[in-house]
């Protein structure tokens, strides 16, 4: 009921893949879990001040398309922006929360957000690129929390 812990590693930086860590993190916090989301590689996008995440059908044959479309057409300039726009519209019409809203709910619920220092350096990010109140750490930092967690997820 309480005292449980959830540790999540977020490694993806696309619009669709940003949802699972933020949904599960915010919901677990609402259920009384103590939650940490460790963001590494492209998962760092979840921590940027302006989350401008995109969705793509390229290399993703499982993505339902409104009309069948050859892969080469999907690669045309502007297609990614169009798909992102369509996905966002669809989500809004179905009452799906925006990523910004979910992140805000995570922060309100005191979900601990950790940026992987190594990948912050690797991609030449600056702490000013990220929202305030996050922590910076490495693999050992993750295990400090994950080692005591009841659930650990890699997304």
């Amino acid at each position, binding site marked *: *009921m309480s005292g449980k812990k959830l540790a999540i590693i977020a490694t993806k930086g696309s619009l669709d893949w940003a949802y699972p860590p933020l*949904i599960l993190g*915010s*919901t677990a916090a*609402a*259920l*009384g879990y103590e939650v940490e989301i460790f963001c590494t590689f492209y998962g760092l996008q979840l921590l940027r001040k302006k989350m401008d995440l995109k969705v793509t059908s390229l290399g993703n044959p499982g993505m339902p398309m409104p009309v069948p479309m050859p892969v080469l057409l999907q690669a045309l300039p502007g297609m990614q922006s169009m798909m992102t726009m369509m996905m966002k519209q669809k989500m809004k019409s179905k*009452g799906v*929360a925006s990523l910004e809203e979910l992140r805000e*709910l995570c922060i309100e619920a005191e979900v601990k957000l950790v940026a992987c220092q190594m990948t912050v350096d690797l991609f030449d990010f600056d702490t000013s690129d990220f929202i305030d109140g996050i922590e910076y750490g490495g693999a050992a930092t993750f295990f400090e929390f994950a080692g005591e967690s009841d659930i650990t997820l890699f997304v």
Partner: protein
Amino acid sequence: MADFDQELDASGLNCPLPILRAKKALTALNEGQVLHIIATDPGAVKDFEAFAKQTGNELVESREEGGKFHFLMKKH
């Protein structure tokens, strides 16, 4: 429907928003007070059962009426 102290209309919202909004509303209530939640997300039926089980709040009532789902959640 039994009495309630506060109402939360989560119609049109999808998972996990009804749960998150309900959690927030319950925080503002006192122990023993009842929150009436209205939702349209069919997934909310199982989710509110699971929420009650895990948080210790009591799901007093769960029913469908006019295409909407109504829940009474008593704060523990």
